Every structure is written in structure tokens, then in C-alpha cells.
């Protein structure tokens, strides 16, 4: 198993932490993982993206140029990363913020109205977790439970009350692609 995942969106949409959670969860499952942010000149506002590699064997290169999975949270990210996806790869599109349609036909496309669902369950901030739920359901590389476990380790105790909400978001996301 080797998944090379790119996650991209606006700064503030939680794409960095989505990637870190994935990496953390992979580590908890004793997989090989790596996370690389793009720390470009676009540090203020603008787009943000990161790459996560999860593998059962030693990771040769943690740099992802041809992702097997791509999660785009906004329109500029769709434009930028759609062409890079590996043939046969997966593209997850946050349709709440992206009305354009992907053009590639050699990849599988999943359309998730992540913000809408997040608002539904009461907090627009968990749109990223909705997205993640859908991704995990498809790729099966990581157990959702490991994500929650990671959250427990990463969040300070006083914010553990947010975990059920996140669980719900993961769940809802998964449902979208079942």
C-alpha cells in the first residue's frame, strides 16, 4: 500500500491539520508516513497545501508530484492540482465552494458538499473532517478510529469535547461515498 495524498485549499480551511492528522493516524497504525507542507511565498492568505505519504514499506521520496489521491477544498486548488493526479487516481472535490467541474476522465471523482454538510451538523469548521471521512471510506488506508485517536493526542484536554463533533463529521463524509 502506498498512498500519496495532496490536500489543498484556502489558508484557514484546515488543510494542513487534515494532512497532519492523516500522517499521525498512519503512524499510530505503524505505517510509514511523511507530511510536507508547501511553505511557499504565499504565506499570507492565498492557497495552502500539503502532501501526505502513507505506505507499508519505507518511503523513498516524501515529495509528492503525482498524487494518487487529491483533495481540493477550493477552486484555485482544483485548477492547480487536477492535472497532476496519477492516472487512475482519486479526486475529492468540495462542491460547496467549487462550482466548476473536473475535466479529467482517467481518474475517479468524488464530489462532496463538505461545507454544507458541516453546517448541517452545526459547525462549518469541520468541513475538512467531512472531506476526510469520505476519503478514508474510499481509500481504506487508515481507520477513522485512528484519526480520532490522533485527535485525542493532539488536542489539549480542554478541547476534547470537540471530538464527538469530529467523529460525526467523519461519519457523515463516509456516508456520502458509501
Amino acid at each position, binding site marked *: 500500500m502506498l498512498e500519496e495524498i495532496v490536500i489543498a485549499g484556502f489558508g484557514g480551511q484546515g488543510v494542513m491539520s487534515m494532512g497532519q492528522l492523516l500522517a499521525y493516524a498512519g503512524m499510530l497504525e505503524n505505517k510509514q*508516513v511523511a507530511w510536507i*507542507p508547501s511553505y511557499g511565498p504565499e504565506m499570507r492568505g492565498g492557497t495552502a497545501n500539503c502532501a501526505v505519504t502513507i505506505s507499508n514499506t519505507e518511503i*523513498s521520496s*516524501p*515529495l509528492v508530484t503525482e498524487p494518487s489521491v487529491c483533495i481540493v477544498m477550493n477552486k484555485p486548488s482544483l485548477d492547480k492540482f487536477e492535472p497532476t493526479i496519477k492516472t487512475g487516481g482519486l479526486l475529492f472535490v468540495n462542491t460547496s465552494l467549487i462550482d466548476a467541474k473536473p475535466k479529467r476522465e482517467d481518474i475517479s471523482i468524488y464530489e462532496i458538499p463538505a461545507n454544507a454538510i458541516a453546517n448541517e451538523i452545526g459547525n462549518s469548521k469541520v468541513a475538512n473532517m467531512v472531506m476526510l471521512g469520505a476519503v478514508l471510506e474510499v481509500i481504506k488506508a487508515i481507520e477513522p478510529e485512528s484519526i480520532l485517536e490522533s485527535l485525542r493526542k493532539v488536542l489539549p484536554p480542554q478541547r476534547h469535547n470537540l471530538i464527538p463533533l469530529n467523529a460525526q463529521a467523519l461519519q457523515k463524509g463516509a456516508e456520502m461515498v458509501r
Partner: protein
Amino acid sequence: MNKVLMKGNEALAEAAVRAGCRYFFGYPITPQTELPQYLSKRMPEIGGVFLQAESEIAAINMVYGASGAGARVMTSSSSPGISLKAEGISYIAGAELPCVIVNMMRGGPGLGTIQPAQGDYFQATKGGGHGDYKLLVLAPASVQEAVDLTIQAFDLADKYRNPVMILGDGILGQMMEPVEFKLTENNELPVKEWATTGKKGRKKNIINSLYLQAEKLEQHVNRLADKFGEMEAKEQKAETYLTDDAEILLAAYGTTSRVCRKAVDMAREEGIKAGLFRPISLWPFPEYALQQVLGRVKGILTVEMSLGQMIEDVRLAVNGKVPTDFYGRVGGMVPTSRDVLEKIVAFREVL
């Protein structure tokens, strides 16, 4: 499992702490700033000192003072900041003091960019500063290795009384990977009888690199030369990957070595017998190890994020015995494994 997921910069900082480093002097610069930031929190917890210096020059001279005073001490910066430390590094090497210097390289020359690069290889290995001195230069390719080499770096620095440089790039600094800190805190640091601690109960100690009499300085430099010779004999480090039957050998360090490793896999999938030679010590350059894997090698392709620097050491090591070629990206661009694969294919054709 004792693994934690950490950024390269932070893991390296924690490794220094585990190695017994209690003094850090530095100045912010992207892409290494997480390192001082981490230590600004960590040092006070363990009774150490984090001091943000007024400049890179002040920082390296504080390191010079602290090291002379017997401390395990570190500084870190990125390319332009390392240039500013050149004089101080030459002094520290000249005065035979141990310390660890981290350079997380970014694109140059000049202000360049904050994106990753490997354009400071020459500066690190041939001497950015004036005069005959050498740094031990270690180039980790993963966060775990950054941790392990940092811990070794402090020991090597003390062993040889010479500064050791950890040479990474922005990617290594920013990347998160699981790491394990294998060492528990090292409490038995070497005793430094030469350090300035106050002359109580002994003759006075002097930390110095000045020898006004040329004859004396020559003796001193020749002694340094002996030490460098010893390092060349004992401290070469390299890793090889699929070199046993390799016909095309890639040579790359740090971040590019990982790109190349993947390129080797891709090449093997296409039936090309590629292998990878990865120097871990850049100085001393692991020439013995390289010479040993030349067996079936028909050509060596050096891949760097520079216009071609390590390639010179590769050529010096093979001394004309094998043809060499070079592929590089610069200015913050990172070569992709596919690019390297294409280069391998093209190179193979002209061999």
C-alpha cells in the same frame, strides 16, 4: 512505540537537547525558524539558555564564547545567515572548539527565495570562511536521520574539537515524519580541561586562533591538518541502495537523495539497473565507499538542487575512471523522480 510525529526543525532541536546541548544562540530566518522557536520554550524547561542574538554574527560569536567556556552549544540558520557566520566559523575552527551549526538551505544567491535548495554545498565543504579549515558536514535525508546525526554531531564535535555542520534544506526542516529519540539524556559529557571556567586550581586557559609568528601558526595549522586527515580516514559515511549490480549510479544527498531513491525504483521497474550512492558525510566526502561500488557502474549521474557542486567531489573521487553527468534544479525548485528517470534514460543512451 516511542515514535512522535515532528517537523524536522523541531526534531533536530529536541535531538540537540537530548545530546546535552544547553545553549542555543540564533537569529530567525526562514525556513529554520521553528528550531529556535522550539528551543525558546524548551531550554528554560531544562535549565538551559536560549538567547536570540542581535544577528547571525553575534550568534556565532556567542557560540564561540560559550564553546570556549566548555558548553555543548548550537546555532542554526539558513543560507544568507550562514554566510554571515563565515568569519566566526573560521575562528571557531581555528581555535579548535566544538559546536554544532545547522544550515537549512534555501535558494540563492543573495536574498533568493525561502524555498529549498542545495546551493551551499561548496560553502559548507570547501570552507565559506577564510583559511585552511574543515567542518565535518553531515547531511540527513529524513527527520529520523536528522535526529540521529545531530546527536552524533555533538559527540564528533567534542571528539575532534571542531565545528560540525548539519546541512539540510527547507524541506527537511518543514517536513514531518515519525521519529524516535533513541538516546536517553546523555549525562556524561566529556570533561573539557581547556575551557575558560576561571583558573581556580590550575594554570590559566587561553582560547585563541592568533599566532603572530608564522612558524607557530604553521605548526598549529599542520596540527589541524593531521586532525582533518584523521577525520577523512574515520568519519566518511554513506548509504548505498541497489548498488550491487548497478550500471547507472545516482549520487545525491539529503532531499534529492530521496527523489533519486524513488527514481531508482522507477528505473528498476523499467528494467534499468540503477542504484543510488548517498553521501551522509559531505565532508569528509565518502570517496572510499564510492570507489567500492563502482564495480559495474558505467556512469554516475549526480543530482543536486544546485548548478552542480557535489559533482566535483564525485569526479575527484572517481578520478576519471567513470563518466559523470549532472542534473540539477535551482532557485527553490525540486527535481521530480520522473525528471531524474528521464535523465537516467538519456544518460544511458550516451554511455
